[in-house]
């Protein structure tokens, strides 16, 4: 059927080609080993040579939609005041599949009526499954998925409100396209509201 050993040699030919290629390809990147260009080359159709990258010196770029444990967005008000967008409506807590979001609503002490702001906000990051439903269904663009995946620790990762709050400019930096879309949508909504009132 086969000449005995022919198939093995054919296979070894592939590994030999790969072996040589990995050295030849390295020559093209002398001095540019840790450049962004080289990392981009790794996930392109022309990739050849050594496939692995050297974490943590090199890191694969995180695409915009990449999602990791969520954070709460705040807008920077005047004199650096943090204005949290969250109204504690509880939609994220209801949509959350492993139920890892815990919210205590603020109540006005004088009237006893709820104030649209969370008093306490917890995300149990060890239970969070990074599905992104909270960010997807939040009507106020207040909770978003993060890109920071290096949060390993020795203890429990229970994130409270202070730890979760990140600025709107940070959000714009990790998800520029999404942010632009949302800013535009909010502006259109405001304009429609103003037109209706006027």
């Amino acid at each position, binding site marked *: 059927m086969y000449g005995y050993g022919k198939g093995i040699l054919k296979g070894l*030919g592939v590994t030999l080609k790969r072996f040589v290629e990995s050295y030849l390809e390295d020559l093209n990147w002398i001095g540019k080993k840790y450049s962004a260009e080289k990392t981009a080359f790794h996930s392109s*159709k022309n990739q050849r040579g050594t496939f692995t990258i050297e974490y943590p010196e090199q890191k694969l770029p995180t695409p915009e*939609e990449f999602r990791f444990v969520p954070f709460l967005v705040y807008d920077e008000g005047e004199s650096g005041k943090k204005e949290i967008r969250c109204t504690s409506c509880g939609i994220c807590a209801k949509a*959350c599949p492993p139920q890892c979001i*815990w*919210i205590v609503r603020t109540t006005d002490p004088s009237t006893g009526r709820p104030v649209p702001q969370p008093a306490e906000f917890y995300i149990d990051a060890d239970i969070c*499954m990074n*599905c992104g439903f909270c960010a*997807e269904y939040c009507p106020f663009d207040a909770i978003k*998925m993060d890109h920071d995946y290096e949060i390993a620790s020795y203890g429990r990762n229970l994130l409270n409100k202070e730890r979760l709050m990140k600025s709107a400019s940070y959000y714009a930096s990790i998800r520029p396209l999404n942010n632009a879309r949302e800013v535009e949508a909010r502006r259109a909504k405001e304009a429609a509201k103003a037109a209706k009132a006027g």
Partner: protein
Amino acid sequence: MTTPVVEAINLAEKFPGKVTADARPGYSGWIISKENLVEVATFIRDEMGYDALTNLCAIDYLEQKMMEVTYQVFKTTGGPVLTFKAQAERVDPIEIPSVVSVWPGAELQEREAYDLYGIRFVGHPDLRRILMWEGFDGYPMRRDWKEAFYEEDAKPLKSRWPEGKHKLAETRATFGDNVAFKPGFDPDKWIPSDPEELLYATLKNYKSEVKDGIKTDHVVVNMGPQHPSTHGVFRAVAVLDGEIVVSIKPVMGYLHRNHEKIGERNTWLQNIPYTDRLDYFNSMYNAWSYALAVEKMMGITVPERAEYIRVIMGELSRIQNHLILFGMLWNDLGSYFTPALYAFEERELILDIFEAVSGSRMMCNYYRFGGVVRDIDEASMKKIKELVFDRLPGKIEEIDRLLSENEIFVSRMKGVGYLSPEDSIAYSVTGPNLRAAGVPYDIRRADPYGIYDRFEFDIPVRHNSDLLDRYHLRMDEIHQSLRILQQALKQITEGPVLAGKPQYTHRVPVGEAYGRVEAPKGELGYYVVSNGKGNPYRYHIRTPSFVNITSMEKMCVGTKIADFVAILGMVDIVLGELDR
């Protein structure tokens, strides 16, 4: 491709008094009185031609005080599934005749229903617990059984909002109190008499004999649960005569988390990210059939572009699944990591696309009822096209050159693990292994879903039904997947990717639905029942790994124990969906 006609035989007229049509609103199929189950099932198989049983699951109708077992059967010549049911009063002992004598493929599924619901299948050859351990008390899938971290029957939990003072889960139910024991049972004082007694009793008996003046004995070998070639925590108990397998039994459940119970607590939407954790190599395919089942009940039509995206993602997923299989199979056969890592390179590039589109490499959570969550962006679309048209065809060819003709590989695969086509059908084998036995059954053609009827592609078939054919068949399938992808990428049109507005609660009308797709490993089916509330009343998954393993003993007996590794590798199990 025409849609096959619905079965014309009226079973209720054929068997008056024994069979009635299921007239509950939203339900379909036949209800067979349990006394006549085997008789009618034999008729369905022999006279109506439904030669393979695909799904068998129990449902606990607590309010109606009734246990129901649902069967889905199909014809290997094509067409939709036929559903029939058997009911029993919900008073222990609950007994329903076993259909193993009609469809041997029911064996593990009946054991599962016994394990989780406590239904005794009379006539079953080996009725033991399968996913839970032998000392476990109670039947965890029953509606009135409550798990250790039980808070409420259904999510969302009231304790989370608006007074969501956080409590660590481990402080609510400390270890030790999180399993239900029989009254008076103390796990610290319990000494098992012989916990494996039941298991070993089902194996072929030990035999001592004198050969050439030497007394020989059969040996029992436990492979796993911690064994690198079982791809996770899977255990096989084999009786060996020298190196030859005399009898072998799978033992599973080490990764069991009662996915289906979690599914019943979840809302409809919340189940989608959980489906990613079943077959974690193919999370892009898993939610598809769940979405199909729920869309069927809700009557949603998926927009055109979303259908194309589903096909593109699904077929990319199939390619990378088969690549992993090749890589890991070679790893198991002893060539260490070279082929595995070569295969992983192309998989990485596919996962890069998944990550850019869905946000995660493996836990994609990309499907929604009525479409997909977001469109493929320009850059990813360009990458997919480059991969499908420029890179993958050449790289697949390279892997083919690297592996397919290797004499050592061929001699280990050829003629090993034979399973006849008749047995394949009887044991409910689906997917590539069925097609390698010469049965051209592929749900994408036989019972088309999505828009698969628009593409031109072949269903590859091989006829020797050995490991080598199963390997070649998967290589053929990759080529066909590329063909589908190339057509889909040319045909895809602009448009919305989600029907209606995004919403996190869904109204699903009362009823049942069974959604099935041809996942890379075989038929993946979801049987869901709605009682009109925000959570599924029943959420059952028929996973290809679990059902395909039924035929393992048939394939292994007579081969060497070393071949078991290759056979298991070719069944292509993944423990996330085997144990659920």
